[in-house]
């Protein structure tokens, strides 16, 4: 024990005496381990944390096994009903909508709240194994069409809207103006991915307009004794029966395309499937940063061990055993690991905080079991484990390797023996490895960043500057009629126009960069068999002028396009190209959703639908005033109505807009008030996040590589003082010495770059898979926005070369300033 303490004291003294080495080693460890700890923390929370449900390992999601093989639980109403009736592997199974609905909630006091609800079957919540904190869950009677309107509240909504009223069960509340009875309140601990504020019965029925689309998700709990494989086998045998009973599904796939099969995945895998590839790619990137740091550390420790050969030789000449020398080196390595790991926790906390700020989604929405709190002790434990592991493997082993040489020869004559060739080679290999890894990270970062910038540069089709958007959910029976909806829209528009600073106002159902109604349509002169998919969006007069979408041909919708007037429509350029091959469609008639023929009176420029990356879909714009009751009920049920407000100044009109809405209908809350630019930013939030993260890690790697190269060349200059002196003595000029050292740095970099380019080409597939996960396109084709790989490589190579020259310059200048007389005397 005494020997250990003595080693600790000696090692501390040695580290204090070499502040540059100590600082570089600790900084290298802190950056590498800090980044790894931060990302591992997120990855483990999202991918490894169990869902917060009892026996969650027996919960599965049931869905179609797609070619991409991402776990999913999507079902149509038909297939969900079929599986509920035919599967035997499950103790229970439940169905829910595959997305949340925006709703207006109030307790009848004129202070409505905009909330998100989820429609679930009676068996859905029991399948998850959760019980209400107050009251009960839905029964089969509640879940029948025509059942009494009932709701289960979340803990948050119960506290927020009902002041945590323990007598809430049986109390009436208003959802979209309809009266619902509260039957239960869920506990605070209960959360699902993208947790809703309220649950209501699904009442799955063919009468539901979404019944025939993949608008539902199915969860199930395996029977005691039944395995996941057994459930999969059963689903596989049921698949042909599904295709036999519902042959129209075969039409969803091109001829020759393998028909997907029903499959079951662990529910946790389903919940995190969207984030899985991206997070694992991020983890891979950060492991590369760690590897760069490790190579750096190996170079530093090897150089230091070489510099201490005489000391080690002296110790061994005085009777020290090899094991005691190794113990001394190990103590020094562990001290560095401890310091680096503690500093790494600081770096990790910083990165975690940054990730929380710039992440497009909250961690808990990816996995409800994840905790967003930074676990300090967990982080420290992980950092210490990584720190000790990397320091011992990459730091101590190369140093110990040097001891295998005959170190006592270092004492002979007291002359510097020069750098052994094997050590020089090791230094070069470590450096080349670092450059290659940094090159791969930089090119991946450049590719992501370039793609993000490409996305940002795509014109949206609207003038987003000084354009505000007020979104409202017009739901419930009162807004099932076109007249009532139109009346509210007129009322709100009138109120908005009164606000000082508001220049223009219009309304739209299907805002650009938001969802529109996907519906069938055709030119009226063609038969119904030619029906093709189009998007229908509904607008008020002046909409295109307000959002800045140019009218290319014909006229805009006017106030004279009333419900009892001749049906009219405007179309976008994409539709003109598709249906009329670029010829003027003015005067032509279109039929949308099997309704009345509408005369095309104008053509407007394209604007983007759901995402910037997607191809622009053929779109028909119809006047709000001419929408029939059935369509109005459907679009109000699914999509929010957006008021677009062109403002003259920078001042926010949010409060005045909310007042205008309140005056029009006090029971309709503001769903969302935001700038149009924020909608644009939202569509690129995920690629932006990954671009910044990859860019950040690439900068880390670049920094570490620069530090490594600087250290290696500085060390080499130190070891080659004699050589430099000789070269100058036989005629080398100082400029030639400067170039000699610079050339060595650049030569190592060029070899590393060449290897890195090969690695980058291989890595491109991973980067594209991250982009596929984060840049949603209808076609899945990213080619229009993907940055050029060659340009990304060129940028990465240029950055690395610049960093190399900067890192090499100081050692090179030091070499050039060596006095030959001093160098030769040192010999």
């Amino acid at each position, binding site marked *: 024990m005494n020997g250990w303490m003595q080693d600790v004291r000696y090692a501390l003294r040695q580290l204090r005496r070499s502040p540059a080495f100590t600082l570089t080693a600790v900084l290298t460890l802190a950056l590498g381990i800090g980044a790894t700890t931060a990302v591992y923390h997120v990855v483990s929370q999202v991918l490894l944390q169990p869902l917060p449900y009892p026996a969650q390992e027996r919960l599965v999601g049931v869905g179609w096994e797609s070619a991409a093989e991402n776990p999913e639980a999507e079902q149509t109403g038909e297939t969900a009903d079929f599986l509920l009736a035919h599967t035997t592997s499950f103790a229970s199974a439940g169905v829910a909508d595959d997305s949340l609905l925006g709703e207006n909630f109030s307790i009848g006091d004129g202070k409505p709240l905009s909330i998100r609800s989820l429609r679930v079957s009676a068996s859905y919540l029991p399948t998850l194994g959760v019980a209400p904190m107050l009251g009960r869950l839905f029964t089969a009677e509640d879940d029948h069409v025509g059942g009494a309107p009932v709701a289960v509240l979340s803990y948050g909504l119960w506290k927020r809207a009902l002041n945590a009223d323990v007598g809430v069960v049986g109390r009436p509340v208003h959802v979209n103006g309809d009266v619902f009875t509260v039957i239960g309140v869920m506990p605070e601990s209960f959360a699902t991915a993208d947790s809703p504020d309220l649950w209501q019965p699904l009442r799955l029925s063919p009468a539901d307009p979404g019944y025939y689309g993949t608008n539902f998700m199915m969860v199930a709990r395996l029977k005691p004794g039944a395995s996941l494989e057994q459930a999969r086998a059963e689903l596989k045998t049921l698949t042909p029966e599904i295709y036999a009973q519902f042959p129209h599904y075969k039409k969803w796939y091109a001829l020759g395309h393998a028909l997907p099969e029903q499959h079951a995945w662990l529910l946790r895998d389903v919940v995190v499937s969207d984030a899985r590839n991206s997070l694992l790619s991020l983890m891979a990137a950060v492991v590369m940063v760690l590897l760069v740091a490790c190579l750096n550390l190996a170079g530093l420790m090897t150089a230091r061990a070489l510099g201490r050969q005489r000391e080690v030789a002296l110790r061994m000449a005085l009777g020290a055993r090899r094991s005691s020398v190794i113990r001394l080196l190990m103590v020094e390595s562990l001290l560095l690991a401890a310091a680096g790991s503690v500093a790494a926790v600081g770096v990790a906390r910083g990165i975690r905080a940054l990730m929380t700020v710039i992440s497009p989604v909250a961690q808990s929405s990816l996995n409800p079991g994840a905790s967003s709190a930074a676990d300090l002790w967990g982080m420290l434990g992980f950092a210490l484990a990584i720190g000790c592991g990397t320091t011992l493997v990459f730091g101590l082993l190369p140093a110990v390797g040097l001891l295998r040489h005959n170190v006592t020869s270092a004492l002979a004559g007291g002359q510097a023996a020069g750098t052994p060739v094997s050590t*020089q080679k090791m230094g070069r290999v470590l450096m080349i490895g670092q450059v290659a890894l940094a090159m791969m990270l930089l090119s991946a970062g450049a590719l992501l960043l370039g793609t993000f910038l490409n996305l940002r540069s795509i014109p949206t089709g609207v003038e987003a500057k000084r354009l505000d958007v007020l979104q409202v959910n017009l739901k419930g029976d009162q807004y099932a009629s076109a007249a009532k909806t139109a009346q509210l829209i007129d009322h709100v528009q009138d109120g908005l126009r009164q606000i000082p600073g508001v220049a223009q106002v219009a309304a739209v159902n299907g805002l650009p960069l938001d969802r529109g109604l996907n519906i069938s349509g055709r030119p009226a002169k063609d038969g119904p068999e030619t029906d093709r998919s189009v998007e229908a969006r509904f607008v008020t007069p002046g909409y295109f002028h307000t959002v800045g979408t140019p009218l290319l041909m014909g006229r805009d919708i006017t106030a004279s396009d009333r419900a009892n007037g001749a049906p009219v429509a405007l179309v976008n350029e994409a539709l003109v190209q598709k249906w009329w091959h670029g010829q003027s469609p003015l005067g032509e008639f279109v039929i949308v959703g099997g309704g009345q023929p509408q005369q095309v009176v104008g053509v407007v420029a394209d604007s983007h639908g759901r995402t910037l990356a997607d191809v622009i879909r053929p779109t028909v714009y119809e006047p709000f005033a001419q929408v029939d009751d059935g369509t109005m009920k459907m679009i109000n049920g699914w999509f929010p109505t957006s008021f677009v407000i062109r403002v003259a100044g920078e001042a926010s009109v949010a409060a005045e807009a909310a007042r205008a809405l309140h005056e029009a209908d006090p029971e309709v809350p503001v769903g969302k008030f935001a700038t149009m630019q924020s909608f644009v930013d939202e569509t690129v939030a995920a690629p932006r996040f990954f671009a910044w993260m990859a860019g950040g890690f690439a900068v880390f790697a670049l920094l570490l590589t620069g530090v490594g190269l600087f250290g290696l060349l500085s060390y080499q200059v130190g070891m080659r003082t004699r050589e430099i002196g*000789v*070269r100058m*003595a036989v*005629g080398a000029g100082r400029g030639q010495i400067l170039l000699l050292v610079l050339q060595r740095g650049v030569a190592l970099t060029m070899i590393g770059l060449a290897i890195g380019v090969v690695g980058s080409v291989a890595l491109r597939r991973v980067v594209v898979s991250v982009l596929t996960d984060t840049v949603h396109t209808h076609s899945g084709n990213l080619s229009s926005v993907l940055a050029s790989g060659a340009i990304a490589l060129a940028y990465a190579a240029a950055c690395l070369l610049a960093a190399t020259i900067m890192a090499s310059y100081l050692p090179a200048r030091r070499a050039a300033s060596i006095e030959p*007389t001093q160098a*030769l005397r040192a*010999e």
Partner: protein
Amino acid sequence: MIELNNLERSYKTGHTETWVLRRIKLSIREGEFVTIMGPSGAGKSSLLNVLAMLDDQWRGEFLFSGVAVQALSRKQRAELARQKIGMVFQSYHLLDDLTVAENIDLPLSYKNIPKSERQALVADTLDRFNIVGKKDLYPSQLSGGQQQLVGIARAVIHRPSLLLADEPTGNLQSAQAKEIMELFRQLNQEGATIVQVTHSEVNAGYGTRTIELRDGWVSSDSAEAGAGRQEVQS
């Protein structure tokens, strides 16, 4: 060829100034083979470094073939040394990771000489020193005498008019030392001016003139009959 007049060199350590060369007044003619002797710390190697133009921190006058070295810039001095001077070291100072041929080529690589011409000069030199068979070997594969042979070959490949040698046989056995000194004599007879620093009386015997330094002063010069310590006034 060389005229030194009141040349002085000192090193500063903190506030202390240590003199290593004091008011050196010296003249060396072309074709001379000069031996500089003296005890350790007498300033022999410092004087050699000044003559080699590796050191430019001295004061006084230094004429080299009529050129006032003290008036030259650092770059001009380096260029003059590159053209006119060759240097041989006690510990050879061959570069470990270069072959014999590459070591010999080193001084030429810092001059604007076409590669083919350099190769021819290296081949000639290898032939002249009888080391053609060793041209691809590394220094570590040679004996001490062979290494010094390569060191001398490197020093003379560009046909310098002045060859400086700092203890050229200091690390060699007597037989090897004799061979090297015979080689110096031969080079001198072929016209090279040689200045060697040595402790060995035997080696000094190969020269034509001996200068003795003590504490930085020239204490004797065989070229000046009856010369003793020069009187100086500080």
